[in-house]
């Protein structure tokens, strides 16, 4: 069985060298040049908050919102962890961008045949047993690749070993059902631009609550409407019949 892969990003170790972005751009054939935020040509970017660097990228959710909202199923969650996008299926509704709780997917706005762009967790590399390009390039060990269970354990151990240094929280452990990218930090997450109010249940259940009612609405509604029509129609028929009968009777009386 393939183990669910993940990456642990220890914000305290990041020196802001941008090697991850460079390696990413090379590995994924993206237009080169340093970028300060995610874009359709930057799958990852360093976000600076008072000298602290936070690496942004697709979080590769365990139950991905994008995969659930896409009308044509262009997103898939692979068993190894990566959430992948199939541009041949995409119709360009951008519901994935609207729905992503981490505001990750980027769009090729200036193209006439645009794609949604985001980190692919170097799927082709990790299926060959390699590390993602960014993890391999990271010189300080701020990004570590491995099995999700193992990395969660390691993150907890690092926090336990230095409780005065780390904030006691692993971001990504439980947020919207858990993600494959995990963060630990010494500066509170809310000061680093993280959405800390995200619910713990995966978001797709929110829409599924409504969608699962569709068959019920159709059958009950259909029967109900047909029933009403039957009653009102019957009423009209009966009235018509009664009128006819009354007419006949009065006619019959007349001939006698």
């Amino acid at each position, binding site marked *: 069985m393939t183990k669910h892969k993940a990456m642990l990003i220890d914000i305290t170790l990041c020196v802001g060298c941008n090697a991850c972005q460079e390696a990413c751009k090379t590995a994924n054939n993206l237009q080169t040049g340093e970028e300060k935020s995610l874009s359709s040509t930057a799958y990852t970017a360093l976000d600076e908050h008072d000298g602290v660097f936070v690496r942004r990228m697709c979080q590769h959710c365990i139950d991905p919102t994008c995969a659930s*909202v896409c009308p044509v199923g262009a997103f898939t969650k692979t068993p190894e962890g990566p959430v992948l996008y199939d541009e041949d299926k995409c*119709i360009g509704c951008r519901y994935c*961008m609207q729905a992503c709780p981490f505001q990750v997917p980027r769009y090729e706005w200036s193209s*006439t045949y645009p794609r949604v762009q985001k980190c692919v967790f170097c799927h082709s590399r990790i299926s060959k047993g390699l590390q993602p390009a960014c993890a391999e390039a990271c010189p300080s060990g701020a990004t570590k690749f491995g099995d999700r269970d193992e990395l969660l354990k390691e993150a907890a151990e690092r926090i336990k070993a230095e409780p005065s240094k780390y904030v006691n929280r692993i971001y990504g452990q439980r947020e919207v059902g858990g993600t494959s990218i995990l963060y630990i930090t010494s500066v509170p997450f809310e000061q680093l631009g993280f959405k800390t109010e995200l619910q713990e249940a995966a978001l797709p259940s*929110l*829409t599924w609550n409504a*969608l699962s009612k569709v068959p019920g*609405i159709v059958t009950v509604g259909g029967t109900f409407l047909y029933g009403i029509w039957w009653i009102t129609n019957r009423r009209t028929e009966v009235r018509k019949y009664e009128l006819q009968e009354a007419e006949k009777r009065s006619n019959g009386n007349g001939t006698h």
Partner: protein
Amino acid sequence: MKRFLSKLTFWKTVAGVILLAGAYSTVVRFFGGLGAATNLSDQFPWGLWIGFDVLCGVGLAAGGFTLAAIVYIFNVKRFEPIIRPTILTAFLGYILVIFALMFDLGRPLQIWHAIIMWNPHSVMFEVAWCVMLYTSVLALEFSPVVLEKFHMTKTKTFVKKITIPLIIVGVLLSTLHQSSLGSLYLIVPEKLHGLWYTPYLPVFFYVSAIAAGCAMIIFESFLSSRAFKRGLELSLLTEIARVGVMILGVLMVMKLVDLADRHALPLLFVPQTETYFYWLELLVGVVAPFALLARKKFRENETWLFWSAALIIMGFVLNRLNISITGMEGWAGKSYFPTWMEIMVTISFVTVGFIVFALAAKYLPLFKHEKHEVRVKPEIEWIEDLRSVSQPN
């Protein structure tokens, strides 16, 4: 030339200018991409075309299924005289929604993918199917008018035979579609402002669409009575207004109970943009028309009835734009205002809708539900013709 100029009235000129600007914007959109024509961005991927064209277009078409249910399911036959124009309005609404989608989708030519690539977990998938199926149903519901025009009696008899199943399917599809547009926003509990985000969004969308549908029937009857100089079915419209005011009452109570239930009532008094827009939407679209239409005196008065319907529609549009734009701006951390090209495309759609409606009124037996005799008459007298057929007996 002089003759041509004299025919060129003010409104025709306005329509021409709008359509020209719309055509230019269309070229920019399709040859330069969405980025060249719109103010959409990675932080704000849905704008005016979704917020107005799709959300409002579908909502304002709700008159179609509401009236169809009243006439055919509840068998209230006295509303039959206004059913054809109402169905046409709904049909045009849906056609325009489809056109708007073709503009808004990044890859419009792939739109058919939704037919074969299924993802039943996606609300957008439900929306796509509802659009396709209900547009087809509306086409069939409207087809007798066209068939009658071309004397295709056999086909018309066939369509008449399946009227009831057709109407039932139409009501069900509308119920699903109206509510699913609300469900679209269920997935953004953190992004959509607390005044609007509720697990009951689909229910609110459905109920408010019925209210807007009633208002549209009234509004559109008034406009066509003026444009085509035909009599106004005031007593019928008063009754529609009575249904509308009941729905508004239900909506108002639901909104308050929902806010209280979510402990969100204090949000009503936080001084910020969202709050002002929420109040505006509530006062214009619900409270004011409710207060007006609740009184018989106003319901039976032509002017008040018209303006109350207009208020409901404005409030409805405001509600949809608030949910799609105002309520999403805070989280996105970016404000959005459409480009003039986005606006022009939208206005062009509305203009085309008016033109097609006028043409249909001119050439099709729209305002008469039984046999329409084709008389050979000079062109201009069609107004006279319409007037005579619209008079009862």
